[in-house]
């Protein structure tokens, strides 16, 4: 979390970060963010960040703690609206639609841009109800049969169905950590989102459960556009096609993942991914 007690700006001004190096634009962008600034009261947490999320691709946002990557991710489905002191400026678009437009309902936006969190957070309800909840409140099913269909297909796509098909009435909280996270992913995709945001989705999981989630991310990208915040560089290298490196509120470098991990352009990127101090 960002330390709000500090009086210093979270944005660095002693290194040349005036321009992002690499390629921030995508040929086929699902979401386009331009000149985004985010403030917590007077403190600036994101400084003039512009980038595209390419359609049906996984974009990894990496950087040290407090660099603003999670803050930026949370702007993409207006999760920051829930923080009263948080102010977002800039042009953020899903397809061509301004997601901060006054007439736009954030609840509907969050159905289109779903989110999976660091800690699996299933509702204290049955596995079935966890997945059925979203489709119900958004009116995506007209009868029980349709709802059943959505629940089953969502669990299947999240790679969980075979493990839970005999106990759909059991509480979601009784599953293992990896299963809970896949349940949360099933819950997210049950409302047919277009974009899935993932904030460290595997950081609380063991390597096997992590591998399953990563495999799933790769499959999900066929249908969805994905942005993932991760502290694991190897994970970013494994799952993403594009990587964006954030440093003290600025986007330092963005480019093809294989280029970032073999031959980064910016010294700060190099230092971070090789574990050097600046």
């Amino acid at each position, binding site marked *: 979390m960002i330390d709000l007690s500090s009086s210093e700006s979270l944005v660095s001004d002693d290194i040349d970060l005036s321009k992002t190096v690499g390629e921030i634009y995508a040929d086929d962008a699902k979401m386009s963010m331009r000149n985004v600034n985010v403030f917590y009261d007077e403190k600036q947490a994101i400084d003039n960040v512009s980038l595209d999320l390419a359609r049906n691709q996984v974009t990894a946002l990496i950087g040290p703690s407090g660099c603003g990557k999670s803050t930026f991710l949370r702007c993409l489905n207006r999760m920051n609206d829930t923080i009263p002191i948080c102010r977002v400026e800039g042009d953020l678009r899903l397809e061509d639609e301004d997601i901060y437009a006054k007439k736009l309902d954030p609840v509907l936006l969050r159905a289109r841009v779903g989110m999976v969190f660091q800690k699996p957070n299933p509702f204290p309800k049955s596995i079935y109800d966890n997945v059925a909840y979203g489709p119900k409140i958004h009116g995506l099913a007209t009868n029980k049969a349709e709802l059943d269909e959505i629940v089953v297909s969502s669990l299947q796509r999240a790679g969980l169905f075979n493990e839970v098909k005999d106990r759909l009435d059991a509480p979601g909280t009784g599953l293992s950590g990896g299963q809970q996270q896949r349940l949360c992913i099933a819950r997210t995709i049950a409302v047919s989102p277009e974009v899935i945001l993932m904030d460290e989705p595997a950081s609380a999981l063991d390597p096997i459960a992590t591998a399953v989630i990563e495999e799933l991310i790769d499959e999900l990208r066929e249908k969805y556009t994905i942005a993932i915040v991760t502290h694991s*560089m*190897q994970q970013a*290298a494994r799952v993403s096609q594009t990587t964006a490196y954030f440093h003290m509120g600025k986007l330092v470098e963005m480019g093809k993942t294989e280029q970032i*991990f*073999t*031959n*980064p352009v910016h010294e700060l*990127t*190099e*230092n971070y*991914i*090789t*574990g*050097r*101090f600046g």
Partner: protein
Amino acid sequence: MENDLNLSHHISKRFNEELEEVRNQVLKMGGVVEQQVREGLKSLLDADQGLAQRVVDTDIEVNTLEVEIDENCTKILARRQPAASDLRLMISIIKTITDLERIGDEAAKLGKNALKLHDDGKIARQFIELRHLGEHVSATLNKALTAYARLDVNEALEIIQNDRFIDEEFDNISRLLITKMMEDPREIKSALRISWCARALERIGDHTKNICEYIVYLVKGKDVRHTSIEEIKQTITE
């Protein structure tokens, strides 16, 4: 131009040490191989049997170093999962030592042929052409290893560019040897041996060129194998 890999700048001190150690091993292996080439040539030109035998025996040391360095690289890859310049360093080391080991093999051939020529009662000094090629190849290898230690891409480029002179020199020697064999068939046996030595020196030149290509990859992050000199120049100036 000198570059710095900042090997000592990792947060993990142990990682710094591991990278330093493996890099030093490569430099050591380079030194051993360079001496082997120099002495192989000398044993040939001076008909020095003792030296020739030593050159042949050094091969074991070179092979051992290759295996040790490979093992260390495997450990680092498994434990540290290096990225960016660290990853390129690992890849370039693994490839460089393969070429160094082969240079060692070629140097050992010089020693073996020196011993055989001696057994046949021939002195390679007669074949003065070898001296020129050998000294040129040996000096080039020395420059390449210095460029490797200093990460000097400009020097590496020069060596890559000059490889064709070694090839030309080799062709000249081949022509001379063919003439000799035609003039006096009794010379065929020793002329063939000298030809093999020239071939070994030419191969050493090729391996040296490969090492220089790895230097460019390590520093610039671009694979310049099988590309034109112009493209390499462009990569370096980018």
